[in-house]
Structures are given as structure tokens and as C-alpha cells.
């Protein structure tokens, strides 16, 4: 107990006295990742190109989900409701694209999911730790129940909905769209890292009372984190819906979609921009390799990775690279 408080105090002190280690050099690995991702479709991939491009697409989506989850976690809110906003993005896009072109439906679905997240955020505002986790877990189940029980013409009921394919089903175009969304998410994350928001989120995470005393308006920042995170997650949902062109409540709101971003961020390295993206790449590729040998239950890996990360690698992959720097107090 005391050891933990000591480390918190130390980190708080560090946050105040030192400027964040945010230099051009720290951006190099991130730039490298995006360079590689951009070049990926042009690599000579052989006759499995289509399959590999699809895996790469879903890796980018997983990155969007994980990084957006991490942004919320930075404000101390460890959510199990990410699947809800991912799913709301998918459903919002499916319904909106009946009435408007995709490039309008996409941002609108994201904003709508963001607004709904404000409702959840406002209700769970004063909950902490496990109460918050339980409430968000239950929220996902209920969103699914509601969508499933709405009259079938509205949202397709338990059978699901057909979604118009993004960009007419052009795989390369879809890949670059996903690339754009992940790049946007990373830029948002970096912008937060640079701005006052970073300090506000860190202060709230390390102690709400203290943050309030320091003059951080806790309510506003917590809701803002919710809005940003959920809108980005919804963009991930749009990509998913537009790629698979068929969605149903059971898969879209599956607990797996909440577990994956959480595990990915913790495995990759919490409160960083590169960590969740790196984690998504490693885990997604591992998952795909496993998918060929195991049909059911590939989530085993996520469960195992989550347990092992917490027991032995609390700073995630990022902790392997830079020892003794901040980040990782879960």
C-alpha cells in the first residue's frame, strides 16, 4: 500500500517538475510504423496479397480501438464499454448511410456515439475503480439487449443488418481509409500528450481530490476523455461494418471487442501513443497465426497475455525499451 502511494507521489512530482519527455526523437519509431504501414500494400506480397491486406486492415482497426481506449484510460477511467461504442459506430454508420454518402455518415456516426458516451460518462462520473468497470461492463450488455430487442425494421434485431461496403469494396482504398483513421487517432493522442490535457488527465488519474484542489475541472475533462475516446472507437466500428458489410448484435457488441483494446494497451504500454499500436500489431498477427490452427477460443491468448502482463510486465512492451521512465502505473 505505502509503496504504491510512494511511487504515485514520486510520479506526481515528476509530472510537475519535468517537462514531458516528448522530443522529436521519441517520434521516430512511430514514424517508422506509419511509413511501413503506408508502404505495405505496395510490397510484393505474392498470391496471398488479398488475405494479408485484410489482416493488415484489421490490425489498423485494432490499433484505433486500443489507442482510443488508452486515451480514456489516461483520465483514470478503465472502461469495459469500448465494444458498446465500437458497435454504436457500426450501427450508426449502417443506419445513416441509408440516407447520406459515406463520408458524411462516418463522422456523424462517430459524433453520435460520442454523444451517447457522454450519457454513460455523466452517470459513471463519480464511480471509481471496480464500480466503474462493473457499470461499463453492464452498459455494453444493455446496449446490445436494446438493439436486439428493437423492432426488426429499425435495427435488424437479432438477425443483423446489411451495410453498404466502404468505397464500393475496394480493398486497397479501404486499407488507406483505415490507415487514415489510425493516423488521425495517433495525431489526436499526440496532441493530447502535448497539451494541458495530458497533465489534467494524469492529475485526475493519480488522485481526483488532488486534481480538484489543483484547479482541474474534473467533470469536464473526464467527459472530454469519454467523448474523444468513444468517437474514435466508433470510427473503428465504421471501418469494421464497412469492411464486413454485415453486422449483428452478438458479434458487434461482443465482450471480445472490449477485452482486446484493454489487453492490447496494457500489453503494449499504457498511456503512450506507440504502445497500443505496437501491441495491436503483435497481438493481431499472433491471433491470425493462431486462427489457422485453432478455430474457437483464440481469445485464450488475450486472457493469458493480460494475466502475464499484469504479473510480470506492468509497463508493457514499452517498458522493455525505456527503463525507469514514466507510464505504467495501472
Amino acid at each position, binding site marked *: *500500500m505505502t*509503496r*504504491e502511494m510512494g511511487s504515485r507521489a514520486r510520479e506526481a512530482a515528476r509530472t510537475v517538475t519535468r517537462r514531458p519527455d516528448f522530443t522529436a526523437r521519441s517520434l521516430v519509431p512511430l514514424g517508422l510504423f506509419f511509413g511501413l504501414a503506408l508502404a505495405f500494400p505496395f510490397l510484393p506480397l505474392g498470391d496471398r496479397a488479398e488475405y494479408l491486406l485484410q489482416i493488415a486492415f484489421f490490425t489498423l482497426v485494432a490499433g484505433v480501438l486500443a489507442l482510443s481506449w488508452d486515451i480514456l484510460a489516461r483520465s483514470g477511467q*478503465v472502461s469495459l464499454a469500448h465494444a458498446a461504442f465500437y458497435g454504436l459506430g457500426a450501427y450508426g454508420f449502417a443506419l445513416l448511410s441509408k440516407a447520406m454518402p459515406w463520408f458524411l455518415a462516418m463522422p456523424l456516426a462517430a459524433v453520435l456515439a460520442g454523444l451517447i458516451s457522454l450519457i454513460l460518462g455523466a*452517470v*459513471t*462520473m*463519480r*464511480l*471509481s*475503480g*471496480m*464500480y466503474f*468497470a*462493473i*457499470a461499463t*461492463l*453492464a*452498459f455494453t*450488455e*444493455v446496449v446490445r*439487449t*436494446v438493439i*436486439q*430487442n428493437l423492432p426488426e425494421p429499425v435495427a435488424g434485431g437479432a438477425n443483423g443488418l446489411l451495410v453498404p461496403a466502404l468505397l464500393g469494396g475496394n480493398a486497397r482504398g479501404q486499407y488507406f481509409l483505415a490507415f487514415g483513421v489510425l493516423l488521425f487517432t495517433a495525431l489526436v493522442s499526440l496532441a493530447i500528450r502535448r497539451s494541458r490535457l495530458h497533465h489534467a488527465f494524469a492529475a485526475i488519474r493519480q488522485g481526483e481530490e488532488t486534481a480538484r484542489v489543483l484547479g482541474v475541472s474534473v467533470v469536464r475533462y473526464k467527459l472530454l476523455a469519454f467523448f474523444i475516446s468513444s468517437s474514435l472507437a466508433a470510427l473503428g466500428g465504421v471501418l469494421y461494418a464497412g469492411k464486413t458489410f454485415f453486422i449483428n448484435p452478438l458479434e458487434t457488441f461482443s*465482450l471480445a471487442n472490449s*477485452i482486446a483494446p*484493454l*489487453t492490447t494497451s*496494457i500489453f503494449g504500454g499504457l498511456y503512450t501513443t506507440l504502445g497500443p499500436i505496437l501491441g495491436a500489431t503483435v497481438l493481431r498477427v499472433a491471433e491470425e497465426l493462431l486462427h489457422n490452427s*485453432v478455430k*474457437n*477460443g*483464440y*481469445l*485464450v491468448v*488475450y*486472457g*493469458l*497475455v*493480460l*494475466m502475464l502482463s*499484469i*504479473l510480470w510486465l*506492468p509497463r508493457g512492451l514499452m517498458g522493455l525499451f525505456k527503463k525507469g521512465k514514466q507510464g505504467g*502505473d*495501472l
Partner: protein
Amino acid sequence: MELFLQTLLNGLLQSGIYALVASGLALAVGVVGIVNFAHGEFLMIGAFLAWALSAYLGVDPLISLPFAALAVFGVGALTYRVSIRHVLLAPELNQMLLTFGLGILLQNVALMWLGGNTRTVTTPYQGSSLSLGDLSVGGPKAVAFGFAVAILAGLYAVLYRTTLGRQMRAVAQNRRGSQLIGIDVDRVYLIAFAVSCALAAVAGVLVAVLLFASPTVGLVFALKAFAIIVMAGLGNLTGVLWASVVLGVSEALVQTYVPGGGGWSDAVFFLLIFATLVFRSFRGAR
């Protein structure tokens, strides 16, 4: 009026299982201080044990109940030794996420091994029913309720009448103080956690009789158990009983009186969580 009474009765019977699951969870939260997100998976193990013993050896689930409880007691003790014990002093979130990972692991091992199908257990009394005046009750439901009540009575007897129970309550109240007066806290934790898992397994056996066994059957019950312990106040064991009745009865009422209620009743627990949490947070408690 008759429909109303029947609804109340159904709800009450359902709450027996809820109380069994939730009191196990409350024991882990109250004594060990761990919110066990893998609780539902221990229930799932119990359900599958009942199914396997019945399908392969022809053992009636109600006879295999003590064996399932004992087996899962062992699994729980092992889990405590290997993982939980190492995060007791870690931040709350680490503990929570660790058990969450364990839950995913167990659920998906079951999925890999047994597939996603539901397995039903057939018993001779499955189709039977009892009638009380104008009301009728399914045989298995009544039996399951009876077992739940008996086991809960046993649990409370242990907690309030034996040395071990007194030690558990002491540890729940003050970890350090208990250590000072010579209680082996680690041992109490181990037993409390393992008993908590065994309670889930017992509930699982009953669930296998009433519904089915499947890899994901635990999640629904775990979520409802969360709702119950949140309503009761985390770690409050006596509150669990009435909170279970509230949940069971309100679900039954929704099922009967809301059109298309079968689907909606699954959302009731969430409303109860929210109502409780919001009410509490506005009253100022955490």
C-alpha cells in the same frame, strides 16, 4: 391476482441461485478484497462437471454436487496460490484486470476444448412439477431453490458460529489487526477464496440442471451477481440475500408484464446497478 402471485413465486425461486452466486462473490470481495471477474467461469466449470458426470457416468447432478464443489474448491485454492496472492498489495485495477484475464482464459479454454454448443443434462425429475394451491412450480426449480437455501444456511452458520467464520469476518474488517492477534491471514484468504469458487460451482451444477452448460453461461450470472453485490454494498454478505430477491422478482415482473419481456428482462440488472450507483453517488458515498 393468481398471475401476480405466480410471478412473485417464480422470481423468488430464481433468486435462490442468484444469492448463491452473489454470496460467493461477496465473500471474495469482503474477505480477500478481490472483485473476482472470473467468478462466472468457476460457475461454468461446475456446470460442465455436472454435465460430464451425468453424461459419461450417469451420475445425477444433485449427487455430483459435493464433488463439483470439492473439485472447484481445489481449483480456487490453486488460483489463489498462483495468481491472486501476488497482487494482493497491487493497485485495485491490477487485481481486477488479473481476474478479468483469468476469466477470459478459462472461458476460452472451455470454448476451445468443448466448442460453443450448449449441453443439457437430463434428469428424471426434469418434467415434474409441484402445485401449491393454484400455483405450480417446476420440480427442478423447487429442488434447486431448496439446495440453494440449505447451502446458504450452511455458509452463514459457518460464518457466524465457527472459529474459521469468526476469523474470516475479522480479516474482512481489519487485515492488519487480524494479523496482530495471530490469525494466519494468508490461510484465511486461501480458504475464503476457494469457498467462494466452490459456491459458484454449486450454483453452476444447479444451472446445468435448470438451463444448460456452455462456455459463456457464467458471464450472465456473474453480471447479475455484480448487480446484486453492488446493490447490497460491496462485501456485505447479509445484504446479498434481499438484493437477490429484488433482482429475481423484478426480472419475473418484467417477464410477465412487459410485452416481449423475455428479451428485456436481461436488462433489468443493469437498471438496478445504475439506480443503486447513482443513488449512492448522489448521497455522497463512494
